[in-house]
């Protein structure tokens, strides 16, 4: 281990002598960083809206998949999309 440490330090010493790369900021970098750094933080309501929207969307997709799974056994029936319940409104809508 000691020998490795010694050899490692020698290699690290050579590595430190490697020519350095360009360290000047690219054109426009400083202005961009300042603009982003001073950007007003998002409003609380905006953050909440984004979070809730995504969750509601995920929930809706879940409900859709659940309904499709329930409907799947009746897929080969004659009228698979007809409401199964004795629901007058639904039947009227279906008849239209």
């Amino acid at each position, binding site marked *: 281990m000691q*020998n490795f440490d010694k*050899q490692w330090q020698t*290699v*690290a010493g050579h590595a430190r002598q*490697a020519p350095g790369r360009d360290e000047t*900021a690219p054109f426009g*970098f*400083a202005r961009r*960083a300042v603009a982003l*750094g001073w950007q007003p933080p998002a409003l609380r309501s905006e953050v909440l809206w984004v979070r809730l929207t995504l969750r509601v969307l995920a929930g809706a997709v879940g409900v859709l998949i659940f309904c499709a799974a329930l409907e799947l056994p009746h897929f080969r029936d004659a009228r698979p999309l007809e409401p199964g319940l004795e629901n007058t409104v639904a039947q009227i809508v279906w008849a239209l």
Partner: protein
Amino acid sequence: MVTDEFDWRECLARVRQRDEEAAALLVARLYPLVIRIVRSHLPRRAAEEDLAQDVFVKMFTRLDQYQARPGTPFEHWVARLAVRTCLDALRAADRRPELRWGDLSEEQAAWLDFMLADQSATPDTSAGSAREVIEQLLSQLPPDDRLVISLMDLEEKTVREVSEMTGWSGTLVKVRAFRARRKLRKLAQSLLSQDRYAKL
């Protein structure tokens, strides 16, 4: 290069008053310091400019947290911020791709041979290849180990300086460095055994 001639206090006062010129000047002044840290701890497939930008955005958003105290220059505070940002990026990065003997060039392989050999004559190859092989090996280490070795062995920081930059105790820094070098040795040995196996 960051020098002491720059009037940090005045520049920071102007930045706090939302002086755009002073803010751009501050970024340009600190860029070499930040980009050196970012390049030493850059996760694979990450763009150094993006990570440097993250550091500066954090600097501006957290500027109110910095309090000028004797012995705590602003550059140290920014360096610490840069180190933490890089460490977070390394932790969030994908799994480290495995390094194979075939990934190394002849020059890099010569340095790897030298690390494990009992010889004092260094390979007759460029310093750049030594740097590359070290970076290849460091990319295989966990983020904390990589950080401590980069700071101590490549940037020649003292245990105290590393401790200030990372917030780790001096003992923890020493222990991490010891364990990281042990991992490097095992890694170098396993790579070399791949080469021997390939030659059979």
